[in-house]
C-alpha cells in the first residue's frame, strides 16, 4: 500500500487530502479543494470530489481518476489510482436529527448526547416535561423535517405508558424526512426494552424502525454506543443514499461514509488515547462550532449549530452581544462599524481579512464563539441526573453542586481546528485566541490542526489506524506549546507565581510573574522542559492554592506561555485601561506586528 486518498464533502467545499508512504512512513502530500456540488445545477457530489481530486492529480502528477474520470481507481495498479479511499460528509446541512425521551434531564438528555456524539445537528429535543403542551409538540415535530429520529425513554423494565405516549405523539405528528418525498423516515428506538414489540407495532408503517439497546438501561449508566452505531448505519443506508450523487460516491469507497464531526471526534479521541490525557477539542467552522471533551473515559461532543465564523458570524454577535466582541479590540472601532463588517462577512462568507484591523476583529469574534461554544458544551458534559448524589459537608456549605464535570484544571490538552485557527497568519494568534476563550488552568498543552484534515484522519483511523496516526503526528498536529496559568483573582502588580524551567540545553530560566502579566518563553517543537511552578497562596496551578507543581512542559512553534491574568479572566471596565492592557499582552507575546497595531491606535 502506497497511496491513500481521503475527502471531506463539506457544505461549501470538498477537501481532498492525499497521503503517501515515504521511507516507510505515512505522510501528507498535498491538498486539493473544489466547491461542493450538492445543489442545482450539478446535484451530484461526485463532481466536486472529482474536481478536488483533479487538483491533487495536477499537483502531484499522479493519476487517481479512471480514464473517463467517472471513478477513483482503487487499488493502485502501480501507476494509476490509490490503495484506499475514504470520505466524510456534511454536505447539504449534514445529519439533522430530532431526539425524544421521557424526562428532559434524564433519558432525553442521554439521547441528545448520543445524537451529538454520532455527529448530528439536533434540531429539537422532545420530552414529556419540556414545558410544551402535546399540540405544541406535534406542531413542532410537523414543522421539522429531520433526517432521523432517536427515541429513548424509560429504564429497562421501568416506565412504559409515558414512553408510549411520546411514541404515539411522534407517530401522530407524521414527521416527514428532509430529503425525498418517497422514503420512510428512519427512527432509532433506544428506550425501555420491554416496550419493543409495542413500538414495533405502532411504528411499522411510515418509518424505517431500528431497535437497539436502551440508552439508559439503568439510571446510573448511559449506554450511547449502540444508538450511535445505529445512527451511522442509517445515515449511510437512508440519508446519504438520498442525497444527490451519494449512491455513486458510496460505490467509490468501501469504507462507510461518516458525518464530518464524527470523523473530527475520532481524531480528538486519538489524541486522548495516544497521550492518555484529558482533551478539550474544538472545531471552529464557518457555520458551527463543535466542542469535544474526553475526560477520563467520557467522550462528549457538543455542536453549537449557529456559532461560526462566516455563515453564522452575526449569530455570534447576537448571542455574545456586540460589546463582548468589541472588548477584545485594542483600537477604537464603533460597535455599529463592527456590526456592519460582520453582516457583510455573513453575506459574503468566503472573503478573508486583508487588513490587520479586519483580522483583529475576526479574532475577537472567534474568542466569543469559542467561549460560547464551551459554555454550551458544559451544559451537555454533565453528570448523569436522576441519581442520588452523596454531598459532602463542603458541598452543603457551597450549596451548589457543579453540574458539569469539565474543570479547566483537569484538562491536559487543548486542540483546535477550523479555517480561522488554521489560517491565522501567526500561530501565536491561534494560541492566544484559544487561551482567552477557554481560559485553561494549571499546565495545559496546546495543539492545532495544520491544514484541516482531522475529519479525514478520523475516518481513516477506523480502517488503518497506524497510517492515520503517522500523518496525524507528523503533518496534522501542530504543537503550539504549553500554557501555564494560575487560577484565582488578585490586583494588578500583585505577585502570582514563579516559574523555573530546566531547558533542554541545560540552562535554567526563571520567571516571576505579577498579576495581569503574560510572558513567552521559547521552547522548540518536540522539545521538553522540566517546570517547577510555585504559586502565591491565593493562586492555584493544579496542586491547590499556594502549592508548588512540578511538570514536564511541551515545546512548540509558539513555546511556553506564562499567564498570570488570573481566572476567571477579567478585562478592565475602563476603555482606556482595557485597551492598554490588551496592547501590553499583544506586545509581550508578539501576537501582531506592533508597529502596524500602533498606527491604528
Amino acid at each position, binding site marked *: 500500500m502506497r497511496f491513500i486518498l481521503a475527502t471531506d464533502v463539506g457544505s*461549501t467545499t470538498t477537501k481532498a487530502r492525499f497521503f503517501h508512504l515515504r521511507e516507510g512512513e505515512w505522510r501528507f502530500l498535498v491538498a486539493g479543494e473544489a466547491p461542493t456540488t450538492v445543489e442545482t445545477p450539478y446535484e451530484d457530489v461526485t463532481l466536486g470530489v472529482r474536481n478536488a481530486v483533479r487538483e491533487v492529480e495536477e499537483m502531484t502528477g499522479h493519476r487517481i481518476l479512471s480514464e473517463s474520470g467517472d471513478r477513483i481507481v482503487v487499488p493502485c495498479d502501480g501507476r494509476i489510482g490509490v490503495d484506499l479511499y475514504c470520505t466524510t460528509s456534511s454536505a447539504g446541512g449534514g445529519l439533522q436529527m430530532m431526539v425524544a425521551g421521557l424526562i428532559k434531564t434524564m433519558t432525553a438528555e442521554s439521547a441528545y448526547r448520543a445524537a451529538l456524539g454520532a455527529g448530528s445537528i439536533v434540531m429539537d429535543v422532545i420530552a414529556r416535561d419540556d414545558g410544551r403542551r402535546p399540540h405544541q409538540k406535534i406542531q413542532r415535530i410537523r414543522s421539522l423535517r429531520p433526517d432521523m429520529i432517536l427515541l429513548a425513554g424509560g429504564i429497562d423494565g421501568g416506565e*412504559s*405508558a409515558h414512553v408510549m405516549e411520546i411514541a404515539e405523539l411522534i407517530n401522530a*405528528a407524521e414527521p416527514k424526512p428532509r430529503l425525498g*418525498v418517497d422514503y420512510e423516515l428512519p427512527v432509532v428506538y433506544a428506550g425501555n426494552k420491554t416496550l419493543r414489540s409495542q413500538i414495533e407495532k405502532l411504528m411499522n408503517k411510515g418509518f424505517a424502525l431500528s431497535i437497539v439497546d436502551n440508552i439508559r438501561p439503568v439510571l446510573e449508566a448511559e449506554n450511547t454506543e449502540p444508538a450511535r452505531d445505529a445512527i451511522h448505519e442509517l445515515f449511510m443506508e437512508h440519508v446519504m443514499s438520498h442525497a444527490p450523487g451519494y449512491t455513486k460516491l458510496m460505490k467509490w469507497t468501501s469504507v462507510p461514509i461518516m458525518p464530518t464531526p464524527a470523523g473530527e471526534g475520532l481524531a480528538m479521541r486519538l489524541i486522548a488515547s495516544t497521550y492518555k490525557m484529558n482533551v478539550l477539542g474544538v472545531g471552529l467552522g464557518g457555520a458551527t462550532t463543535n466542542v469535544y471533551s474526553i475526560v477520563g473515559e467520557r467522550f462528549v461532543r457538543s455542536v453549537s449549530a449557529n456559532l461560526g465564523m462566516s455563515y453564522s458570524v452575526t449569530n455570534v454577535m447576537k448571542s455574545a452581544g456586540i460589546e463582548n466582541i468589541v472588548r477584545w479590540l485594542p483600537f477604537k472601532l464603533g460597535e455599529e462599524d463592527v456590526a*456592519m463588517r460582520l453582516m457583510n462577512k*455573513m453575506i459574503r462568507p468566503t472573503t478573508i481579512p*486583508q487588513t*490587520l484591523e479586519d483580522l483583529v476583529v475576526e479574532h475577537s469574534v472567534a474568542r466569543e464563539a469559542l467561549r460560547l461554544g464551551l459554555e454550551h458544551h458544559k451544559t451537555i458534559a454533565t453528570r448523569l441526573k436522576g441519581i442520588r448524589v452523596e454531598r459532602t459537608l463542603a458541598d452543603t456549605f457551597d450549596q451548589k453542586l457543579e453540574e458539569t464535570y469539565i474543570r479547566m484544571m483537569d484538562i491536559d490538552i487543548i486542540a483546535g481546528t477550523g479555517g480561522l485557527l488554521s489560517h491565522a*497568519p501567526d500561530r501565536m494568534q491561534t494560541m492566544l485566541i484559544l487561551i482567552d476563550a477557554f481560559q485553561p488552568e494549571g499546565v495545559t498543552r496546546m495543539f492545532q490542526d495544520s491544514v484541516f484534515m482531522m475529519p479525514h484522519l478520523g475516518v481513516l483511523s477506523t480502517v488503518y489506524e497506524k497510517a492515520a496516526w503517522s500523518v496525524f503526528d507528523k503533518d496534522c498536529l501542530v504543537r503550539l506549546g504549553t500554557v501555564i496559568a494560575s487560577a484565582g483573582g488578585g490586583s494588578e502588580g500583585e505577585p502570582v507565581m514563579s516559574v523555573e524551567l530546566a531547558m533542554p540545553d541545560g540552562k535554567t530560566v526563571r520567571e516571576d510573574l505579577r498579576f495581569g502579566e503574560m510572558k513567552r518563553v521559547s521552547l522548540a517543537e518536540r522539545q521538553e522542559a522540566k517546570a517547577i511552578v510555585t504559586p502565591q497562596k491565593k493562586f492555584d496551578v493544579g496542586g491547590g492554592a499556594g502549592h508548588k507543581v512540578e511538570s514536564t512542559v511541551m515545546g512548540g512553534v509558539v513555546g511556553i506561555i506564562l499567564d498570570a491574568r488570573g481566572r476567571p479572566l477579567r478585562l478592565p471596565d475602563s476603555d482606556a485601561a482595557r485597551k492598554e492592557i490588551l496592547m501590553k499582552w499583544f506586545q509581550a507575546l508578539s501576537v501582531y506586528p506592533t508597529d502596524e497595531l500602533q498606527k491604528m491606535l
Partner: protein
Amino acid sequence: MAERKEESANSREAYAYTPGLKVKRTTTVSKTRKLPIRGEVCVKVGDTVNFDKVVARTQLSGNPEIINAAMLLGAEAQELPEYVTKGVGEKVAKGEAIAASNSLFGFVKKQITSPVDGTMESISEATGQIIIRGTPVPVETDAYIPGKVVEVLPGEGAVIETNAAFVQGIFGIGGETHGKIRMAVNSPNEELTPDKITPQDKGSIVIGGSLVTMEALTRAVEIGVACIVAGGITHRDVKTLVGEEIGVAITGQEEVGLTLIITEGFGRMNMSQRTFSLLKDFEGYMACANGATQIRAGVLRPELIIPHEETLKRVSIDELAAGMVPGTPVRIIRLPYFGAIGKVTSLPVELQKVESGSYVRVLTVELDDGRTVSVPRANVEIIEE
C-alpha cells in the same frame, strides 16, 4: 514573529472561485414549484401560467388531537376499548361523544366528546389515549412567475420557464411578491428617503440607490409597497425592521409588510451602475421578487425576475464557471476597497503577503479610478457580462 510563508506555500491549497451575483438582461429563468408532500399537479406541459396560477395542490393531514381518555373516564388504559363509542376510521363531529362510562349503577355517567371535526385515528390500550385526526388542511403552490410549463413533476409540481431579465441581490427580507417596477431615484448614488415614495407606489417594486433608510421603509409599509430594492441598508435599520438581530442569513419568512432586496451589502453602498441601468430600462414592467436568502448549503440569493420578450441568449454552465482571467471585470467585496469596481490585470501564482500578515493568493485589479491594487482572490466577485 514566526511567519508561516513556507508552510502555507507547501500546503498548496487551491482556491475555488464563486461566480458573482447575476445581473442579466435576457435569460431563461426556470422555477421548480413543488409541494412539500405529494399531491395533485394542476397544469400540463405547454400551459401558459400567470403569477398566481395554482400549479399543484394537496391536503396535509389534519392536526392530531390527543385525548387522555382512560384518565378522564377513570379507567385503566387496557379497558379503554370497552368504553369507546366510535371505532378507528369513523368520522366524528366536534362535540360528538366518542367514549362514555357508567358508574354507580348508571347514576353517574362520564362522557368524552370530540374537540374537533375529524376521524378517529387510534385507540391505545398502551397509554389510554384516543387520537382524533382533524380535517385535512389544503396546501397549494402557485406559479410565482408567469411563463410556460416545461415539465411536470408527477405528484410534486411543475417547472415554469420564462424569458426575463434576472437580477440577484446579496441579501433580502420577506418572501415572494410581484409588482410594477418604479425608479424612485435618479442615480445609483442617491439615497431612498421617505419623500421619494408616493401613494401611487402601492403594490409596486420601488428602486432606490445607495441606501434605504428606516424612515423610507416605514413609509413604504404604510403605503403598501410590494418590494424595495436598494444598494445598502445599515445594520441598525435591518435590526429595527425585523425586530431582532439577524443571526444567520436564512430569511424569507419575515412578515414586515414588504419584501426588501439589498443588492450590494450593509452600509451605504452605491447600487452597481449595471443593475441600476437594467432596472431603469424595465421601469413600468411587471416583475416578480423574492427576498429569501440562504447563504449556507444552497446559496439562495434574493431575486428580481422581469419577464419580457427580448431575444434570448443562452448561457451555459461552462461559461459561468470559466473563472477569472486578465480583463475579467470584478467587484471588490471586502475592506479596504469594498465596493470598488475594476478589471483584473494579473493573477500571480505565488502566495503574496497582505497587510493582515497572511500569505494568500492575490490578484491585481485596475480600479475604475485608475489605481492598481492587490487584493486576495477570495475578496473579489466576477461581474458577469
